[in-house]
């Protein structure tokens, strides 16, 4: 078809006065501009929304963090880095950092291994497994606020339902003040977080486990590997990308924890369950020290960013190649 068409085209080109190469280049450039305009045109709404409501506010917080400012009018009382130096001498904020670390360590040491164990259990063919899966995941779809109110009542100090149940099975000693006692409030919070979130991590692991080829575990079985060896040397390495993502989500979740704490304890008793977001909320919305609260936002952002970049650089690099960063030529 093209070959029969060629002579006509050539004839036409010979007849036309403007230099053919230049015209072709101009047409190509115009096509490229048009293509670029179309492509970015499709991006425009997302870009406007994202810039305006995600990036712009963050930049403004970065600016406001250098002022003493009650939140009305424009910030004018420039104080340099004072908010930041104050922040790192603020026992409550330092406590927030410590409590965040505690929650992360507890999650990695207890919640995620538990989720993994449940995933391995439910990955086997057994009766009722769909029901268990659905039940374990169900709390994830509940609002943190509603979950918090529910457990605030279940863990009511001294005569709440949790105490009644523990008393009923002869474990009175374990009960007590729960959220109201400074020494148990974080453990109680962690229990509720585990109730709500382990099912989510379990679902991630189940999806990962289903992607482990049967042939590999079968081959290991034939080679004489026991169940633990099969898990340790075949399943676990193949599950590593999923595990890394789940750890990442868990840490980001701990950094921004707010709803659950706010409705159960509001940070109390005496700041013993306060998180960075709660402290920020207290200063920004209750005490009108908006400059100081902005500094907290900025530090939270810096922590998330440094963590995310470091994690991506050192831990996730292999998993994310081609997934989020590039799509050069691999056609995927």
């Amino acid at each position, binding site marked *: 078809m093209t070959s029969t068409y060629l002579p006509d085209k050539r004839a036409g080109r010979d007849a036309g006065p403007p230099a053919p190469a230049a015209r072709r280049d101009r047409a190509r450039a115009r096509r490229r501009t048009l293509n670029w305009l179309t492509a970015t045109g*499709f991006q425009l709404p997302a870009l406007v929304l994202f810039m305006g*409501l995600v990036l712009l506010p963050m930049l403004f917080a970065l600016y406001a963090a250098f002022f003493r400012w009650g939140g009305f009018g424009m910030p004018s009382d420039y104080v340099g880095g004072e908010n930041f130096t104050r922040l790192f001498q603020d026992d409550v904020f330092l406590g927030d950092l410590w409590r965040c670390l505690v929650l992360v360590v507890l999650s990695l040491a207890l919640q995620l291994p538990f989720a993994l164990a449940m995933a391995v*259990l*439910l990955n086997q063919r057994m009766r009722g497994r769909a029901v268990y899966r659905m039940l374990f995941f169900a709390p994830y779809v509940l609002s943190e606020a509603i979950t918090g109110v*529910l457990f605030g009542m279940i863990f009511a100090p001294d005569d709440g339902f949790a105490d009644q149940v523990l008393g009923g099975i002869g474990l009175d000693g374990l009960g007590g003040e729960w959220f109201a006692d400074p020494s148990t409030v974080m453990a109680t919070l962690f229990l509720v977080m585990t109730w709500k979130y382990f099912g989510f991590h379990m*679902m991630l692991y189940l999806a990962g486990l289903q992607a482990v080829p049967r042939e590999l575990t079968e081959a290991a079985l034939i080679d004489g590997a026991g169940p633990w060896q099969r898990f340790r040397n075949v399943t676990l390495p193949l599950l590593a990308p999923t595990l890394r993502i789940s750890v990442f989500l868990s840490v*980001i979740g701990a950094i921004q924890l707010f709803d659950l704490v706010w409705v159960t304890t509001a940070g109390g008793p005496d700041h013993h369950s306060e998180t960075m977001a709660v402290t920020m909320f207290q200063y920004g919305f209750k005490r009108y020290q908006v400059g100081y609260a902005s500094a907290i936002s900025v530090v939270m*952002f810096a922590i998330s960013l440094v963590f995310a970049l470091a994690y991506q650089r050192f831990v996730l690099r292999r998993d994310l190649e081609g997934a989020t960063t590039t799509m050069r030529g691999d056609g995927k």
Partner: protein
Amino acid sequence: MTASQKTRRGRTLPLHLVLVVVGAVMAVPLLYAALSGFKSTDELSRNPVGLPESWVTSNYTQILGSGDFWRLIGNSTLIAVGTTVLIVAVSALSAFSFARFAFRGREALFTLFTMGLMFPFAVAALPLFLLLRSLDLLDNPLGVILPQAAFGLPMTIIILRGFFRQIPGELEEAATLDGCSPFGFFWRVLLPMARPALGTVSVLAVVTSWNNFFLPLLVFTDAQWWTLPIGVQQFQGQYSAEYAKVFAYLVLAMVPALAFYSVAERQLVGGLTAGATKG
């Protein structure tokens, strides 16, 4: 029953036991709340664990009969639907452009969006509030819908881009030869084919919006606009001594989310695992 079946059952028995115990821990708080809603507060303090002596339905019926509860449901629905429509429309356009065009700045722009995944919402809450106040969007549903959409973009774009890229390029060539414009291809070919993916991201957006607490807490001071999570917290504050009422309220507030989950389980779980592994 054969011998091998017997040993198999013997081996899985402890595993079943573990599952039953964990299942009980998961289910009991919910069942306890539901049962407690059928008691009077008096009975609840006398008999916290057992079945109700007489089933009191008034806790539930009073809530269902009051306009307040339904207004919360209405507000939550309005905001969830608004957020979802906006998020899906905007993300689909963007994901289409990422998936089907090669243009200068594409990688940089995509990296910018993926960075959005690292912004916990709590980080931006305060500056966002200040911005919304200066735009006069407080006590306005748009004040919740727009930011929720903005923060949901990264995940939605990533999921949709992955899906759009799987649709063969020949299809687009064929459509173009038939005189389809890029938008025509997007609207008439790509979107109908992407229905499962659109369903997934919509379900994710609905659940996230429905459960959001922080943003409505900041934006709505006027009770007229409160959403369900705010309403639950306020109700507890108001009736803190009447446990049975609060339990009934909690249970009714959980029903829509659990019902939605039971209908859309596959999309929800699929979307979350896809989002996590691709993001």
